[in-house]
């Protein structure tokens, strides 16, 4: 397709230019001005919420670990502020008109931090490893399901051959799972799947210390000279090194920052934000994540949510704005669709179309036959209480979603007499409940950079997390068309139709809020940024210490 070729050429030509002007186009956080001019030295300590279960990017599964991945590893592509793919370790790509063959050219003079050169053989080794049975089953089964073969045409050219058109393959190439690990590490690392200091990449930092349960330490990769166009500078990182400490409790993180024991923290809950804004030496910044919005999905395969009226009634029973305000103060961004409002695929028309109409909720429930109430004020039908169960897996609860669930629980009880039972359980019990179909509400948000990837899993009849059990050929068709459509405008149109279908028409879910990340930092720290499009804290590459 000529359009694609043109874009590639333009991207390749613009790369160096972009790198220079990126400071304006990517909108560096205001913290930069307060700290003065970028300087090259010093070390920082950053308290993060989550200790990654693995340091191997191929095994990546925690959005909260993304900021760590890009310190040591890099992908072939990345997203810019507008959600467009731009080159990183690749200089560009072309695709054949049938959408079945992608050819990528690779950047020259890039080396892994152990000295191994980065070339097409390395890319092939990485992708082949990902498809090896038992290594990364989720990546092989989802992201690479349409990949037929990888060819190293010459040292600087890689060709990906697909069995079906799949624009999401580019999203894979920009994802942490598509990050490049040195082939030497792939062969020799002691615990490859767990990662560690012996699993190396091409990134601006080198991991040199990992104390489980406590911290990670990275030192600058002095030879680094291949920053993506989205960064605000080129050459090696500003910092000599950076330590990430794992502080699970938000109160402890905030306490560590306000008592000057760390310089940056991420994950600042709403109630603690006044502590940050009340301190003149601290600064708070916030960005919406990409992917799907945090929503309650209704299990349509069993009563009562097999009835459209009950799904609509549940949605109307929740005054989402009030609930969000009570839990998150004024810091949460309400979601109206299954897709996060920060995504280019978001359908704005859904805003204000539903929700918060108590009278409507009650009349819908009356119509559906749940007219009488028991002593506790819950609706009953044929002696059975209108109970719906939400099962939350404790290890994956973030943003105080357990608290939000309690607020929704109180709201649906007060306004419509619905009994929402919330249980916070371990992962095995949760998966078991899903397997046995013993739940009515499923909560989820996904941080995929391309929202289409999330929707494939959540809404396709054969999706890996289709917990609504929706099986609708129209929805499947739209999803498949969206995955094959290369033209952005056409693609946005397809996903708009899809959102109308699942949110407005079928009321398959109650969108609650758009997940966001927060960084609170000392004003002495410059270059505090979020990763473009993904909306999660960026790597330490652009960070520096002022004064």
């Amino acid at each position, binding site marked *: 397709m000529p359009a694609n070729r043109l874009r590639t050429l333009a991207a390749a030509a613009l790369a160096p230019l972009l790198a220079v002007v990126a400071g304006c186009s990517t909108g560096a956080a205001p913290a930069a001005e307060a700290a003065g001019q970028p300087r090259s030295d010093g070390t920082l300590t950053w308290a993060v919420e989550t200790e990654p279960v693995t340091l191997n990017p191929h095994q990546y599964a925690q959005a909260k670990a993304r900021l760590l991945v890009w310190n040591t590893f890099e992908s072939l592509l990345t997203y810019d502020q507008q959600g467009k793919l731009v080159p990183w370790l690749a200089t560009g790509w072309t695709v054949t008109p049938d959408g079945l063959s992608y050819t990528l050219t690779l950047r020259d003079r890039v080396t892994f931090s152990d000295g191994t050169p980065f070339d097409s053989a390395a890319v092939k080794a990485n992708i082949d490893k990902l498809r090896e049975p038992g290594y990364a089953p989720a990546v092989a089964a989802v992201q690479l399901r349409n990949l037929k073969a990888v060819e190293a045409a010459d040292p600087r050219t890689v060709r990906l051959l697909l069995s079906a058109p799949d624009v999401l393959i580019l999203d894979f190439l920009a994802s942490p799972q598509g990050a490049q690990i040195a082939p030497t590490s792939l062969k020799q690392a002691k615990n490859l799947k767990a990662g560690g200091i012996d699993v190396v990449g091409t990134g601006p930092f080198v991991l040199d210390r990992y104390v489980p349960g406590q911290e990670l330490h990275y030192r600058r990769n002095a030879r680094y000279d291949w920053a993506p166009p989205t960064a605000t500078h080129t050459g090696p990182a500003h910092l000599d090194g950076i330590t990430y400490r794992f502080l699970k409790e938000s109160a402890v993180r905030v306490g560590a920052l306000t008592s000057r024991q760390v310089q940056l923290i991420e994950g600042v809950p709403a109630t603690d934000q006044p502590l940050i804004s009340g301190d003149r030496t601290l600064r708070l910044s916030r960005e919406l994540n990409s992917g799907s919005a945090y929503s309650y999905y209704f299990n349509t395969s069993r009563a009562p949510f097999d009835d459209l009226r009950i799904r609509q009634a549940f949605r109307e029973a929740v005054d989402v704005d009030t609930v969000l305000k009570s*839990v998150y103060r004024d810091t949460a961004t309400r979601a109206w669709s299954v897709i996060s409002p920060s995504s280019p695929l978001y359908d704005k028309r859904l805003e204000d179309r539903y929700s918060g109409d108590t009278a409507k909720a009650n009349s819908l429930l009356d119509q559906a036959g749940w007219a009488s109430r028991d002593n506790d004020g819950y609706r009953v039908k044929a002696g059975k209480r209108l109970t719906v169960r939400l099962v939350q897996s404790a290890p994956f609860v973030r943003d105080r979603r357990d608290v939000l669930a*309690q607020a929704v629980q109180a709201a649906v009880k007060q306004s419509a007499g619905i009994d929402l039972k919330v249980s916070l359980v371990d992962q095995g019990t949760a998966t078991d409940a899903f397997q046995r179909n013993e739940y009515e509400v499923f909560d989820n948000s996904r941080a995929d950079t391309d929202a289409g990837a999330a929707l494939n899993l959540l809404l396709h009849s054969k999706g890996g997390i289709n917990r609504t059990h929706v099986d609708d050929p129209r929805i499947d068709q739209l999803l498949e068309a969206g995955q094959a459509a290369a033209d952005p405008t056409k693609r946005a149109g397809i996903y708009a139709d899809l959102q109308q279908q699942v949110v407005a028409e079928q009321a398959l879910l109650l969108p609650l809020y758009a997940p966001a990340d927060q960084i609170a930092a000392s004003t002495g720290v410059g270059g505090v940024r979020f990763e473009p499009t993904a909306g999660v804290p960026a790597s330490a590459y652009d960070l520096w210490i002022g004064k």
Partner: protein
Amino acid sequence: MTVTVGPPLTETPTRVLADPSEPAVRRRSRPRPGLLAAEVYLILLVVAAVWPAALTPGDPLAADPLAVLSPPGPGHWFGTDHLGRDVLTRVVHGAGHSLTIGVAATALAVVGGVLLGLLAGLTHRVADEALSRTFDALSAFPMLLLALLFITIAGPGTASLIVAIGIATLPHHARVVRGQTLVVRGSGYVEQAITFGQSRPRLVLRHVLPNVVGPVPVLAVIGLGEAILAAAGLSFLGMGPQPPSPEWGAMLSEGRNYLQVAWWISILPGLAVTATVVSLTVVGRHWQARFDGRWR
């Protein structure tokens, strides 16, 4: 001799240990404000558990989004939590959870402990050995680990907590009773009774049991305090009654994220736990002193 708990075993020691600063005989007649306060608190606690609405008419689950995190003051004497629920109402309603778990777990431990302990102390050596090894194996897990394991299987919740804490504290009671039984069994009057040809069940009921269960009520009161502490700890780790239940440990756990902005959400339920355990211990000690005096 028959009433003291015996030498501390390698087990959770009782907190009884008759407070030596209050020799029972010397001070019994003097008014004791501490004891009175403890008794009043326990009575209030029982009222709160049985009929919470008598103390606080509100709904412990009623959220008021407009009054989130209000500090203690008129209207909300213990303030409100992160969902705008009244903390005092929740603390009062929480008494039911804590007492239920504590009483049921203690009952399980005491009844099971007495039965198994008697059995071990009276039966054949092989059975005794098997039972004793089982107690050992159970005690080989620190209580918290045992409870965690149990909750892994049964899932978190009130029933799980009861059984977990009951099982974890059972070996202690069983050992005490077994020890007592052996002492009683070896004592002169049982031998005498045997010589006089008394039947076995009669022997157990008439002579062994009364002498063995002497310390049990006191142990139970103190054990109740321990069970409530343990329940609070496990709930704190998220293993107890699920939200929005107003369980004290769970409230403390939920509230700790707001410690810097709203200390009352976590500290006040925590103090309720402390006050309960202190009161139980004070009353338990008092009873023990009285029993000691009577039996001496």
